[in-house]
């Protein structure tokens, strides 16, 4: 599904990603872990198409197609979804109106008409129940005054509505209490299938108790320096990152 080859990316001439290789197949869950500043969020933003980042070398293939030249919305139309670490507050746009617009614009890009209002409502009801989101919440301005937990649940609600092929969850666990974490993880697990893939970016192993990865990668200084199974996450939790740094430097 996703194949990243020797990806180098920089922002304002500062190199952040320095040769990432990663292959994610349908049906898989990959965790990317690493200390602060290692490039995790940059990798997520580059895959999603944030224009501030410049890809200086390498490429990103989505189902065999190089997506480097595609705008963020075109990548979304092809099934890429990024759950933001810090979802942006947008006063004046309601959650419902936002998601309706997102779905209908995605349909338009695929040559389909607007989703009938009845189907839209039904889908909104189902998916908001899945994430235990109150209906009143949906008429509020997007992310404005939301608690950390509400913001993250809203991200996964959007993911549920948009049904992406490739979901990237950037620090979705940060700012969540244990109940919210459970709800969010449960939502992600319900959405998982053999046809889609999930990349979980996290600092801590905590979220990975709920969303169990098939592969764990350690990102350090813009490179994936170690990959393994889910047990690698436990090892990192127990021992921190220093031993890996030493291994790399050795």
């Amino acid at each position, binding site marked *: 599904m996703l194949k990243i080859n020797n990806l180098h990316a920089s922002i304002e001439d500062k190199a952040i990603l320095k040769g990432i290789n990663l292959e994610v197949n349908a049906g898989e869950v990959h965790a990317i872990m690493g200390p602060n500043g290692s490039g995790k969020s940059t990798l997520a933003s580059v895959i999603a*198409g944030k224009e501030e980042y410049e890809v200086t070398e390498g490429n990103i293939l989505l189902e065999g197609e190089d997506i480097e030249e595609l705008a963020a919305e075109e990548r979304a139309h092809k099934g890429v979804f990024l759950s933001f670490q810090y979802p942006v507050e947008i006063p*004046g746009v309601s959650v419902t*109106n936002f998601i309706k617009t997102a779905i209908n614009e995605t349909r338009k890009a695929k040559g389909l008409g607007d989703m009938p209002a009845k189907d839209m409502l039904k889908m909104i009801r189902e998916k908001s129940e899945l994430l235990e989101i109150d209906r009143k919440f949906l008429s509020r301005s997007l992310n404005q005054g939301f608690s950390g937990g509400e913001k993250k649940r809203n991200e996964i609600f959007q993911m549920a509505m948009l049904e992406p092929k490739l979901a990237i969850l950037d620090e979705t666990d940060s700012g969540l209490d244990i109940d919210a974490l459970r709800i969010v993880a449960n939502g992600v697990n319900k959405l998982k299938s053999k046809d889609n893939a999930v990349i979980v970016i996290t600092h801590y192993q905590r979220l990975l108790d709920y969303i169990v990865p098939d592969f764990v990668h350690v990102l350090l200084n813009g490179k994936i320096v170690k990959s393994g199974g889910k047990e690698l996450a436990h090892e990192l939790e127990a021992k921190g990152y220093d031993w890996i740094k030493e291994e790399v430097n050795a």
Partner: protein
Amino acid sequence: MSLKEKLVSSFMAFEDTVDVHSSVHDIRTEAIKTFEAEGFPSKRQEDWKYTSLNSILKQDYSVFPKHENDLEFKDVKKYFIHDIDAYKIIFIDGKYASHLSQTTHDGLDVCLMSAALTKPKYKVIIDNYFNKIAKKDGLSSLNTAFSMEGAYINIPKNKVVEKPIQIIHFSTGNEAAVMLQPRNLIVVNENSHVQIIERHQSLTDNPVLTNSVTEIFANKRAIVDYYKIQNDRQSASLIDNTFINQKQESLAKVHTFSFGGKLIRNNLEFYQNGERIDSTMKGITIIGDKQHVDHNTLVHHIEPNCESHQDYKGIFDDSSTGVFNGKVVVEKLAQKTNAFQANNNILVSDKASINTKPQLEIFADDVKCSHGCTIGQLDESAMFYLRSRGIPEKEARALLMFAFSNNVLDSVKIPEIKNRITKIIANKLGVNIGFDL
């Protein structure tokens, strides 16, 4: 011959068409003298520093359009708020169009200024109200000098007017260029409520210059809700002079939606003559190309315990220019005044500009006055957020612009107007998305 000379010399011809032996005509005669002395404003005047009329005054306007123009309702229906029952006072090239109108004398007067200015039964009202609060500057005086046609609305005491009143001025473009000077008088008596919608619409690309004067009197506990929809073609310019005199406990609200036109200047003045008065003025301006919109507001707090609220949003694209000049005067007597003013702007293009200037003159010591203006750009992180969800750049931009301005619509009391405005905005921003409210 300059436009000023042409207008001054046309006054004699105008006099042939009206009763010169009336108190109204004395006012007109006085007014043409003022116009002759003052002329059109120039950029040397502080209030006109950022708005030049030069380019629009160069046209050779016909000042007395011929009355041979007709329109069918089906051709102009889209300019009406047609999905509600309303009184209608419609003009075509400055002349009353009875077949498009729906006036009344049944318990209230919704009719024509020409009738009010000439018929004896209106004389008392005209003597008491006509030209009593209009400014005596060049532009308003010019309108006063040629005052003849427009809307006359008089609501008696204790009357809640259920249907809104629509005033629409069409110009057909049957003449190369035309200048219109509509004059409206609106008197709302004690405890009465009225909603009014005003629009100026040209139907071709021939130049039109409208210099309109509206006097509104909101008497004790009256409620006046006024909507100005400015979405004309870019060949049309509008100078709107609106003066509102409020008595105690009255509430007057003016919403101005400026999307179209070549040049628009809104002179909007509120005078609070009584206690516990509320004056509200709000506006959304979304323009592009070389359009220019200038909001010049004044709230004059004269007595204690009153409020005023101003909230203007502006979005400027291409080489468009905006001006906001908001003046709040609080007299020494006007203690416990609450006056709020906000003007927020987004410049979408590098070539667009806005000049915003709050002016507070406060002579009382126990008041709450605030003002704030901002000029910014669209938030790039919000853009990426929307686009990452599949909303294309243009639509994302439109959604953010709408979100930026839509709190102004919260106070719009007529849902059909709200719908119409959101449609105009979507159209203006070139997108086909619903902005659910």
